[in-house]
């Protein structure tokens, strides 16, 4: 384990990141005001690395994933930088970012059936998407590439001319993965790719995603509710709360030794095979139109201090690598006098529940 870890660490340091997000922000305009779904997110992803993105519902995970791809709905605004191969995706012309998607960036969604045209054979899906991004390929070359990708996902060549409805749920998801990977993109976002699947099939897909770096050297941002999946398939984890990444680092470090109270409470409230008592975080994530001042988690945080309610926590290095933003970790010298006093929490009721 330790050898593996130091290997991976040196890997991370020796290689340029594939993708580098800096202070990314995304708002949705509504009549109530702007929903700040992603509010200042930064991270790097090394080649072949998998980053798990976890957090409660509505904290902005999907918005971040789509924002990185430039796949936001109308009315959404974004800001910040996403560096990919020396270029900033966010400031590209739409035509260029479209060209980038598919050939260099890939996306895997939760509901594969809604992404496939029921009237088109699998072969046509591949033809169409490959042709768009690499018009120089001949029909035979396309078929060759498609069959290779399908084979790696365990779909036999006999099924190449089938229609989407002729596949089972798990096969469809493998198909989507094959389509996302056929052009060997260097960065893929997978948004809850297993949520709709059966338990055993979910485990199969997690395994496939886990093998990705070996087979394709693809970097993956894996969005999921399931911390178990993060532990099994990811190198690093980013914990998101109310539009910000509050803690990120190597999975083993973060899960064994969470620095942010939110990370700790999220892990504690997860029901796993070792659960002997039920724990939960009181209240619900805040309204992103008007999030709380200071640390956004302070109204729910069991360890909140006076400073937490007034000042934004500083994003600092985690004690064992990675980043964290929580006043408990520091920096000491920025906490005003008396700031460490325990904050008196209001009673949170079910009325505030998610």
């Amino acid at each position: 384990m330790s050898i593996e870890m130091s290997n991976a660490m040196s890997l991370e340091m020796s290689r340029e990141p594939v993708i580098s997000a800096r202070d990314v922000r995304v708002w949705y305009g509504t009549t109530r005001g702007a929903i700040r779904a992603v509010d200042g997110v930064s991270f790097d992803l090394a080649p072949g690395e998998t980053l798990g993105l976890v957090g409660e519902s509505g904290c902005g995970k999907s918005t971040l994933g789509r924002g990185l791809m430039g796949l936001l709905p109308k009315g959404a605004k974004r800001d910040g930088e996403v560096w990919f191969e020396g270029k900033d995706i966010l400031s590209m012309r739409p035509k260029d970012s479209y060209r980038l998607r598919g050939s260099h960036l890939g996306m895997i969604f939760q509901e594969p059936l809604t992404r496939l045209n029921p009237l088109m054979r699998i072969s046509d899906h591949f033809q169409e998407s490959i042709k768009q991004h690499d018009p120089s390929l001949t029909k035979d070359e396309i078929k060759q590439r498609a069959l290779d990708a399908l084979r790696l996902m365990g779909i036999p060549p006999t099924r190449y001319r089938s229609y989407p409805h002729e596949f089972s749920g798990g096969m469809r998801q493998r198909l989507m993965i094959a389509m996302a990977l056929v052009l060997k993109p260097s960065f893929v976002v997978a948004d809850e790719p297993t949520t709709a699947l059966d338990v055993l099939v979910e485990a199969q897909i997690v395994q496939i995603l886990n093998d990705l770096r070996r087979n394709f050297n693809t970097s993956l941002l894996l969005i999921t509710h399931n911390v178990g999946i993060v532990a099994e398939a990811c190198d690093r984890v980013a914990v998101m709360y109310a539009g910000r990444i509050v803690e990120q680092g190597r999975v083993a470090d973060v899960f064994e030794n969470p620095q942010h109270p939110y990370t700790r409470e999220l892990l504690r409230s997860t029901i796993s095979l070792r659960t002997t008592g039920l724990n939960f975080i009181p209240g619900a994530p805040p309204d992103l139109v008007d999030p709380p001042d200071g640390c956004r988690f302070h109204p729910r945080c069991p360890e909140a201090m006076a400073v937490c309610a007034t000042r934004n926590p500083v994003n600092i290095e985690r004690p064992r690598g990675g980043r964290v933003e929580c006043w408990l970790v520091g920096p000491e010298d920025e906490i005003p006098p008396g700031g460490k006093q325990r904050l008196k929490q209001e009673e949170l009721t079910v009325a505030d529940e998610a």
Partner: protein
Amino acid sequence: MAWPSTEPIVDIRDLSVHYGLRGGSLARLIGSDAGTVKAVDGINLTLRRGEVVGLVGESGSGKSTLGRALLGLAPATEGSIEFEGQDLADLSGRRLRALRRDIQMVFQDPSAALNPAMTVEEAVGDALRVHGMRSASERRTKVIDALERVGLSPVELFLEKYPRDLSGGQKQRVVLARAIITGPSVLVADEPISMLDMSVRAKILQLMLDLKQDLGLTYVYITHDLASAKFFCDRIAIMYLGRVVEIGPTEEIFANPRHPYTKALLRAIPDPDPGRQLPRDLPRGEVPDAASPPFGCAFHPRCNEATPICGWESRDLRALIEGHWTRRSAEEYAGERSIVGDLDHLDKPTTGATIGSAGSAETRVFLDRVRAEKPDEPIWGGIDAINDVGSGVRVQFREGVDPALRRAGEVQVACVLYPDEPTGVEAAESDRDRPPPPPEPVSAGINRRTVGLTVVGLIAALLPFVAFAGITREFVQNGVLTSYSRINVLGILGGVVAFGCGWALLTKGGGAERAPWWKAVGVVVALLGVLQFLHGSSLLVAVSPCQSERVDSTWCR
């Protein structure tokens, strides 16, 4: 954990719920129905007062159907359900409605379970109104009490709200309030936390524990999530394709899983413990089509402990060959494909599978290559013989065994690996291993179709000779009226139908083992059909009884 009580409250005996799949009406007429789905197939289960029984399994295993059957919402095809000693089937009208008060259900999706046009107060109080409580103020008192019990306080904040104003967890609380307001003793909870956010699940589960404590409820907890079942249930029944494959006390199931399916489910649970290794030996494939389940043990195609008698058949052969092809290069695949030809016919389940189109020897070489690649696949042990036929080979599989639930230690398991003699009461009641099932559904259906086709064909071909409904028509020859005949409408129709039946017999008759005499019958019926058509349309004057010489023949009037 000791049982909360030993008193049975619900007793399910040999329960089966089968759904007929809709085929066309003509298909039904000639006996080729599209089959049935055995959603629940011979299940025995006793609920003891105060316990939590978990029904765990993948999609399509029949969990919801079993739960719905408890409420009388899914009709039992066979078997019985007794609630406090009363058979549900004997209840009717008012008594059945009274029972609905005693057994309540909570569904997975709280948004779908609540009427968007009803306020919380209306939704929760509605059950009382249905059960005949007229006084609005009385209802309101009860609603307030129920909402308080499920933690929706301050109640005034929620009474007037609509579902759209509530979060997922709050909606599920409303659904729970609605379920407990009639004072039930059994609550069937169908995936009550699956649709909720991770951080809300523990809250709802805690609430259910509190309700159980306060109200003395008995739970049936339906889930595909073993982790929550482990925490929540006293006993667990693992289900697969309509059957219980393992059942026993929760601790024993987790400490000592016996059925290969249980083991697989346990291995597959993602665990947040970073020290854990990824499981490498997951079952392949997915839950098969319930309308045509695998032979023998339904789990055998995915089982990594399967034995030669687990029910191997043609579909397994297809999966094996296609799996082999995912590991071949394109050229190798093209070559092998041309040897074995199309595999689609293997989807029709049979224990005698014919493959190969380029010669028996070549097909054998190909099979040897597949075998050499994966010599440990259990399917090889299930092959009795490989015989040359035509330009390929016929792979003969061993008859499989469909294992019954049998006692193994503290639990019961349905797997040939646990053949212990039945000793316990429940085990003694369950059948022996059922005899090999294959021929029954497949060929029976098709023979019925064959017979149906023959009968319909013959009637269509012969009836118009005796029945009359014709139009008289005169034949003019050389300007002279020489003869007249009739167009027999029935004859034309009958001829067409008979020909169709004959043709169907020729091409599809006789079932999997296509005996030559069905072809002969097909030819005869089709010919009769042609004859009848020609006769009916008067084109066959020579054969027609209505020839000019016999104008006054009774046949023609």
